[in-house]
């Protein structure tokens, strides 16, 4: 099981001090958070992609490439890469460059975005959201697997004998997750390709996410990639923790109350009861995070959102310390104990490379057998 953190990359003013941070401070804080995440033993850092204020996360591969140079072990990912409004050719190139420079520590999560005007800003039509996600990914998938691509589609100029460079590291394309908040079409797309499926697990009751994951697992089996319980599932979740739960609740409430996502509606307590939100002590985080697998099945990746709403960098780093010291080691042990041996881990560059080498050596053994 992989544990990590995902950031939306907002520059909101701190609600307790009203002090806005600068865009540069926020970008550097994201780097510091990623570096710290590796230091405390997390497996994944993922950044969002947004193209409007109050966000700074418009260029994920630039940010992740810088983080790659400052880290050595953590997997760099996205949450999400906009497959609708980005040119799939440029996505293929940018993430392949990142993959080479980061020695394969790269995967990505594709999404459609949640901001309507981004489509017209990038010359697209929001009513084409799902068709763009389907066609653009079909092309991206092909560009990473075929050296010479002839291609014609609805949304992009055709390609003749196009080679996307650099080729994926070791010929292994980055593993792809498909993120969805509500669309069964995206669960179906992830299942069709045998890719991963990720639910952000934020701000909605878990039943909602359970339904989507159920569709993905069932269709994953339908397409013959493995049994339903072997499908590759990831989940997010918003977490705030302190050594004791009263401190966590007191410190987090202003961030919760002022968040454009969660504030001014149900109370924080109602959110904790009805959605995956966790605010409390390390033990409370452990207890609730362990219930996710009861709803979603044994899954492969857990990402925690820990740095939204203008939270100061120091506070986020404190959260990471507690996660690393007290929460993640227990979750690793407990999920490993509960997971049946037939459920695979999330694919990494190393595991995909090993799988391919096994296949290649099996194939050459059998051709040697045949030659005898």
């Amino acid at each position, binding site marked *: 099981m992989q544990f990590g953190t995902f950031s939306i990359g907002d520059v909101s003013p701190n609600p307790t001090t009203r002090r806005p941070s600068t865009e540069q401070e926020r970008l550097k804080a994201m780097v510091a958070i990623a570096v710290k995440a590796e230091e405390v033993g997390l497996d994944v850092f993922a950044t969002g992609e947004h193209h409007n204020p109050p966000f700074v996360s418009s260029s994920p591969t630039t940010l992740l490439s810088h983080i790659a140079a400052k880290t050595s072990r953590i997997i760099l990912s996205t949450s999400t890469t906009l497959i609708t409004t980005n040119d799939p050719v440029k996505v293929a190139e940018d993430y392949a460059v990142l993959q080479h420079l980061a020695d394969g520590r790269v995967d990505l999560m594709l999404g459609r975005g949640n901001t309507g005007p981004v489509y017209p800003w990038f010359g697209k039509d929001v009513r084409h959201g799902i068709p763009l996600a389907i066609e653009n990914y079909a092309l991206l998938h092909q560009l990473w697997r075929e050296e010479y691509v002839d291609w014609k589609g609805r949304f992009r100029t055709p390609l003749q004998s196009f080679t996307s460079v650099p080729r994926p590291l070791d010929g292994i394309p980055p593993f792809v997750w498909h993120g969805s908040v509500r669309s069964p079409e995206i*669960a179906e797309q992830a299942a069709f390709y045998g890719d991963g499926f990720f639910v952000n697990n934020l701000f909605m009751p878990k039943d*909602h996410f359970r339904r989507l994951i159920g*569709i993905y697992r069932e269709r994953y089996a339908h397409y013959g990639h493995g049994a339903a319980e072997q499908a590759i599932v990831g989940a997010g979740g918003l977490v705030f923790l302190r050594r004791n739960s009263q401190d966590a609740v007191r410190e987090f409430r202003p961030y919760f109350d002022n968040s454009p996502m969660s504030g001014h509606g149900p109370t924080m307590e109602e959110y904790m009861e009805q959605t995956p939100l966790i605010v409390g002590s390390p033990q409370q985080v452990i207890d609730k995070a362990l219930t996710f697998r009861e709803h979603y099945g044994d899954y492969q990746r857990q990402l925690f959102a820990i740095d939204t709403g203008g939270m100061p960098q120091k506070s986020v780093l404190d959260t990471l310390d507690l996660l690393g010291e007290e929460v993640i080691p227990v979750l690793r042990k407990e999920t490993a104990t509960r997971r049946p041996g037939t459920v695979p881990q999330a694919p990494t560059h190393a595991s995909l490379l090993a799988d391919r080498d096994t296949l290649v050596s099996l194939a050459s053994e059998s051709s040697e057998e045949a030659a005898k």
Partner: protein
Amino acid sequence: MSTRKPLRLAVVSAGLSVPSSTRLLADRLAETVRSELAAAEREVEVEIIELRDLGVDIAKNFASGFPSPELSEAIESVTSADGLIAVTPVFTASYSGLFKSFFDVIDNDALTGKPVLAAATGGTARHSLALEHALRPLFAYLRAVVVPTAVYAASEDWGGNGDSLTDTLPRRITRAGSELAGLLRDLPGGGGQAVDDASVVPFAEQLSALRPE
């Protein structure tokens, strides 16, 4: 005939006072539908949804994007019913904000094809066309089937002056009630099919829809 399931009738009342004339009208309409269907040997289970009790939950749903367990139960009652009676007071020349808000948090496909009786109350008869100018388009947008007679009850309608030519509320209630009963009487009962919002279009179809001609 008696082997058919009871029909499920949801009654939404947006009245704010207790007791409210909106609820009074809702009850009269529900009772009429029940007795019309009893004459056709159909049993009816009536479920009343008082929006006043759900006002805070509806507002929270706007902020959060998801319903509380109580609101979720009310939405389920309405969307899974065989028929719906919806009654609002007229505020500021239209349905009340609470009434509209309740239908705003329901999925816009969830009432497709559902038989609906629309009714309203007000201080004077001068706003009776709010039914035709506001409620009927709302349910038309939701692709519900609204019965031809919409019932408006002004304060004066609850009294009457003994003139059978102008005391028409009881007759309008009966006419509207029997119109709704007429749409319900041959349904199988037990509630409509819940809309399956999780149905999947196979990926090959999604892809081939995009192939250039």
